[in-house]
C-alpha cells in the first residue's frame, strides 16, 4: 500500500452544533483518524515538486504481490 507518514495527522475532533449534549456527541462525532491525501485533491497545497515526487513514488512504485521482494 502506498503510505506516507504524516506529522500533521493528529486527531481533530469537531464539536457538534450548539445545543447538542453528551448523547449527541456520542452519536454525531466526526473525528479524523487519518487525513489521507486530500490535500493533493485539486492540486491545492501539493507542496514542492520534490515532496510530490516522493509521494508519487511511494504510491506508484510498489512491489508486485505475487512473488517478489518488499520494495
Amino acid at each position, binding site marked *: 500500500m502506498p503510505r506516507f507518514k*504524516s506529522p500533521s*495527522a493528529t486527531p481533530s475532533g469537531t464539536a457538534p452544533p450548539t445545543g447538542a449534549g453528551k448523547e449527541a456527541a456520542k452519536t*454525531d462525532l466526526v473525528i479524523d483518524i487519518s487525513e489521507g491525501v486530500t490535500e493533493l485533491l485539486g492540486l491545492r497545497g501539493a507542496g514542492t515538486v520534490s515532496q*510530490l515526487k516522493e509521494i508519487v513514488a511511494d504510491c506508484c*512504485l510498489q512491489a508486485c504481490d505475487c512473488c*517478489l521482494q518488499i520494495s
Partner: protein
Amino acid sequence: MYVSKYNVIVNLRDRGDVSIIHNLFHGRACLIGRDLGNALKTALGSEPPKSLNTHYLSLLRDRHFVYESREEEEDEIAEMFHLFQDHLTPGNAGRKYEILLNYDCNLRCVYCFQKKMRGGAIKNFPMTEAQLDAVLKTVATIEARNAEGNRQASEAALLSVVGGEPLLPDVRHRTALTKIARFAAEHDCRYSITTNGVALIDYLDLFEACGRKPNHVQVTVDGPRQIHDQRRIAIGGGGSFDRIVEGIEAGLSANIPIGVRVNVDLMNVSGITELGALIRSKGWDKSPHFSAYLAPVTDHSAVNKTYKWIKADATIIKQLVALFEKEPELEDVFRMKNFRGFDQVRELSRGGRVGPVFWRCEAVLGQLVFDPSGDLYTCFEAAGREKAKIGRYFPDLQIDAVRLRRWTSLNTFENASCSGCRFRFTCASGCPWHIVGQGVTECLPIEEELELAWNHFAPVFMRRLAPAASGLAPC
C-alpha cells in the same frame, strides 16, 4: 450533492455507537456516529440523506466524503491520476529490471506457478553469458538515457535476480551472479535475489568476494519444518527446511538483509504461530536486517486448478486475524502487505496516510523481465508464456509496442472494466497477469478485509483519538 461511492462505512463490532467512514480513493478516514454511518450507507453513490443536517453535510463535504456532484469527484480523480502520471519516470518507471536466470529449480513446491516451464518445450538451461551481457548492456543504456534526461528517481535502479532458482550450486550460476554483483557495484545499482534459500549459504563467499552484497534476499519459509517440508520438497523427495534456516542465519550474520516470505493457504495457516515462535526464538525478529511477511497463495497462471488449499475469498485473512487476536505478538513478526485492505487500515489506524493505487505493480509500469530464451516480459510470473511476451532482448532489443500497451494500459484509472467498482483504488484492478492471461479481472474480498481490519485495529486508533473523542471511552 453527491455521496462518494468510494466511501466504505464500517460499524465497529464492540462499539454500538460509532462507525468508520473511509474513502478508498483519497484515503481519508473518520470516526462518526452510528446513526450518521447508517444513514450514509444507504446513500453511497447518490444524494445525501434528507435527514442529514447542514452542519454535518459541511463537515463531510470539507473532508471529500461528499461532493457537489459526481462530476466533481471524477474530475478530482482524473486530476490526481495525471498529476501522479506526470511525475513518473517515462518507460520503466520503477527502474526495475528482473533477470530470470533459469526456469529450473532444485525444489518441487506443491503450488509452483512455473511447473509448466520446466522440461518439455521450454529450455532447461540458464541464461548464457552472451545473453546476460546483452541484459546488462540494455540496463546500462536505459539508465544512461534516464540520467541524461535527469529523470532518475532518488533511489538507484534495481536488478532483481530470479528463477526458477537463481542460486543453483554450479559454475554457470556462480559466474552469472558474480557478473551481476560487479555490474551493480560499477553502475551503482541495487541488486536483490529471490531464492528458495537452499544454497544461499554457499553463495555468501561469492557476495563477499565481489565486494557488493545484495541489497535484499528473499527466502520462502512456509512454516515449521514438518509443514514447510511437505510443501517445498527437494527433487527426489526430502526436506529443504534445515538448509534454508542455516542460510538465513548465515546471511543475517553477514549483514545481508533477508526477507522471509511465507506463502499462506489452508494447508499451512495453522503453522504460522509455530513459525512466529521459531523466528522469535532465533532472535531474527530483533535483527535490523530481517523482515517477514505473509502472502496468500494465488493461481494467476491457472496451473494449480486441482490444488485444493487456495482460497480466493476472505477465508485466509479471517483465520490470520483470528490468530493475531489470540497471539498479538505475531503481528510484530509478520507484515501483511499483500492483504491490501488490511495493510491499508493498519497504516491509517496509526495516523499514516494512504493514497489511491493507480498502478498495481511493476508489470504495468514497464518493468523489463529478461528470460533465458532471449525474450522480454514485464511480469515475472507470466514469463515463459507466449501471451505475455512483449519482445526480445537477444540478439537485439525489440519491443512490440502493442504487446507492451496491453500491460501498461492496465492502470486503475484507465481500466474500463473496473471503472464502476468502489474498491478499484485499493485492489488496483487485481493482478495484471490474471487479466492478460485469463481475460478476466480478479476480484478480491476487499470489503470483508476492510471490515475485519477496522475492527481489529480499533484499539489502536481509539487510544490515539482518546483526547479528541472525550465523550468516548477507549475500546
